[in-house]
């Protein structure tokens, strides 16, 4: 496994060891033994060989059950198979394609342009492997018209007579004049950016393929074919889905959990949390359900509506699907409506069943925590119910809900996960959250150094420069910087700066400079940029720094600096 750009720190490794221990304890004490699956596997293998002409690989019990619940996914697969056929035709026309090598691996124009891409004569399963993982991307959602990829091995095929521009890394770009194929390989992960328009990207490898499209970072694992087509922009863009619908569903799951919905083999059993002889633990987004809980059922209509909510969760994973196709547009719309309906149901329930409000609140915290309220677009043509949801959940919690949140946080109800406290504090300026964080800082009640630093930074940004807060920040930034990850490090450093400890920023800048150099060498640009953005925007440093840099290099020249040069100038300025 190739290591990710960020390395796991010792804390994470130790936590992982505890997870491993947990698994082992379940096996030894809980009697959850490793099964003997030899017979199953051999039977399936024999079955597959006997059905060599079958067009679909056999699926597991779990997958079969899942597919049965997802007829729309079959439509998608059918559509992708058709598109994959078109790609196959493109590949078969390879003799007229003049591949251009841009990496160390030579390309033989007489051979299949991709050794892993099967020809139609090859084993059907192998061909399906590609077809099943083909995605059509419509990056034209307005502001951006490119999609970028990072993967171990990429092919770009231009099957049009027109020119297509392809950027490799951040600085070089190549233009494919008419039909052609490019292969990007190498020990470093090639980074590719393609201007949209009838371009096919073939990506292979066991590592995750990341692509960036219309502001959203998406990841796919394994081999995949991506087709970039300039079709009519879809009015509900992927960002909207990724940043609003998806968290809404996550929130719905959490809320459903808070209501102790127990789903087992398609049977929905509903129980009200906190009922007499039932026991349910609902803790934010990690709500646990005790299936032994018993409670009176709610009325039938409400159960049906909750059933609809569960259907939302059974929708295909749209995040990775073709959001531009008519089929998926319908599916997306359905998802949208159902999510809105599910939220509305849950909100209604708070009025119909006041006894559940405490649990609704916990569900809301989970939802808030997941979403962080950033993705909702004010300009979108939202329906009334979506508006309702957005106003209540994302933007303007009612005073009653906020009051509960405030009290809940103040009383320590969110101590389990600092993210909840931080988010509540940062987003809603919740005094209860701030008060609780102060208490935890003073009583040394936060174990994780990163969470501790973030909580102290939050207080620091609120103007709290008390000895306890300063001690935590200085310990993290100055005494033991390795205990913090990069994000927490820069946040804590910036908080020190805001609290008047300007000398600390020199050290922050020095360490950041080293890290940026390191990232630069590895071409991991986005993360460094994120960190600098964090300092620029989130912590409002531009008022202090950017004009100085501009004045030094001249406004016109500043505009001409590339991003790295701006980062350099920024860090130089901080180092002074």
């Amino acid at each position, binding site marked *: *496994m190739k*290591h*990710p*750009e*960020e*390395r*796991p720190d010792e804390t*994470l*490794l*130790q*936590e*992982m*060891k*505890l*997870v*491993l*221990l*947990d*698994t*082992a*304890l*379940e*096996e*030894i*004490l*809980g*009697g*959850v033994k*490793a*099964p*003997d*699956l*030899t017979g*199953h*596997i*051999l039977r*399936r*293998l*024999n079955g*597959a060989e006997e059905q060599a002409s079958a067009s679909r690989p*056999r699926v*597991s*019990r*779990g*997958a079969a059950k899942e597919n049965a619940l997802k007829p729309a996914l079959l439509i998608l697969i059918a559509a992708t198979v058709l598109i994959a056929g078109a790609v196959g035709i493109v590949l078969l026309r390879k003799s007229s394609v003049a591949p251009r090598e841009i990496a160390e691996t030579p390309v033989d124009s007489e051979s299949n342009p991709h050794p892993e891409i099967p020809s139609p004569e090859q084993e059907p399963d192998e061909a399906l492997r590609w077809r099943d993982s083909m995605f059509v991307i419509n990056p034209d959602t307005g502001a951006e018209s490119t999609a970028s990829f990072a993967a171990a091995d990429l092919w770009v095929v231009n099957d049009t007579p027109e020119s297509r521009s392809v950027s490799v890394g951040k600085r070089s770009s190549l233009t494919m004049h008419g039909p052609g194929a490019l292969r990007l390989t190498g020990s470093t992960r090639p980074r590719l950016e393609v201007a949209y328009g009838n371009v096919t990207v073939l990506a292979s490898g*066991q590592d*995750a393929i*990341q692509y960036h499209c219309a502001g959203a*970072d*998406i*990841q796919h*694992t*394994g081999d995949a074919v991506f087709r970039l087509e300039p079709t009519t922009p879809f009015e509900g863009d992927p960002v909207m889905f990724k940043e609003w619908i*998806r968290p809404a569903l996550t929130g719905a799951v959490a809320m459903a959990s808070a209501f102790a919905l127990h789903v087992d083999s398609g049977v929905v059993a509903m129980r009200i949390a906190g009922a007499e002889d039932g*026991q349910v*633990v609902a803790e934010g987004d990690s709500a646990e359900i*005790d299936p032994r809980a018993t409670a009176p059922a709610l009325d039938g209509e409400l159960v049906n509506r909750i059933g609809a909510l569960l259907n939302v969760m059974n929708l295909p*994973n749209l*995040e*990775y699907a073709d959001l531009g196709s008519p089929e998926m547009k319908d599916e997306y719309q359905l998802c949208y409506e159902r999510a809105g309906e599910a939220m509305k149901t849950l909100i209604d329930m708070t009025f119909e069943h006041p006894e559940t409000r405490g649990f609704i609140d916990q569900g809301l915290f989970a939802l808030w925590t997941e979403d962080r309220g950033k993705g909702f677009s004010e300009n979108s043509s939202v329906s009334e119910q979506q508006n309702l949801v957005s106003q209540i959940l994302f933007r303007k919690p009612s005073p009653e809900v906020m009051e509960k949140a405030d009290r809940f946080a103040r009383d320590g109800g969110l101590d389990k996960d600092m993210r909840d406290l931080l988010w509540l504090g940062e987003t809603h300026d919740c005094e209860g959250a701030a008060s609780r964080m102060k208490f935890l800082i003073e009583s040394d009640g936060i174990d994780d150094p990163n969470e501790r630093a973030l909580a102290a930074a939050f207080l620091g940004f609120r103007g709290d420069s008390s000895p306890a807060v300063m001690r935590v920040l200085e310990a993290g930034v100055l005494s033991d910087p390795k205990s913090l990850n990069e994000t927490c490090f820069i946040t804590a450093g910036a908080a020190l700066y805001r609290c008047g400890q300007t000398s600390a920023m020199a050290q922050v800048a020095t360490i950041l400079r080293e890290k940026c150099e390191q990232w630069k060498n590895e071409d991991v640009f986005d993360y460094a940029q994120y960190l600098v953005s964090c300092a620029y925007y989130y912590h409002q440093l531009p008022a202090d720094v950017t004009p100085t840099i501009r004045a030094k290099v001249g406004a016109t020249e500043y505009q001409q600096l590339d991003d790295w040069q701006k980062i350099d100038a920024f860090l130089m300025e901080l180092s002074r």
Partner: protein
Amino acid sequence: MKASTVTTPSDFELLVRAYQSGLWRYLRFLGCDESLAEDLVQETFLAAYRKPPAKRDAAGVSAYLRTIARNKYMNATRGAKTSSRQLALYAAEQVWADCAEEDGGARYLDALRACLKRLNEKPKLALNLLYKERLPLETIAGQLNLSAQGVKTLLRRSKEMLRDCIERGLEAEGRA
């Protein structure tokens, strides 16, 4: 199993028998429930049959199977946040390689059994009530005459002790 040459069904059966437990354990470690782990073990071996591992030594085969299993797991559970998840998976892989790669976790389980014996009565009881009896924290707290938070702390400390004890045990065994 020292080496693997997946050329015939009988070879393949040997491969399955040798690696399935470790693979299942690995998937459980990554977060699969029992049923998903079973499904993915099957899928992994079927994929390995279609495309056998290039490296034939035990470590190479094990790593190859884990890679397939991990990718299948990620495919089966797409949707989580990507960078933190990748980091967690990388950490998981590192921990697995350190603790359980050689034998699919068999030695690790032996070490855990030995360490459990050395544990004091109270933490041992708490672990049994949680993992064996599957009781909720509040009930365990009642039985141990502790607060729920106290039980959490006790469990956390017990697990940390076990983790350290296992590590020492494995290291000592490695040296021997």
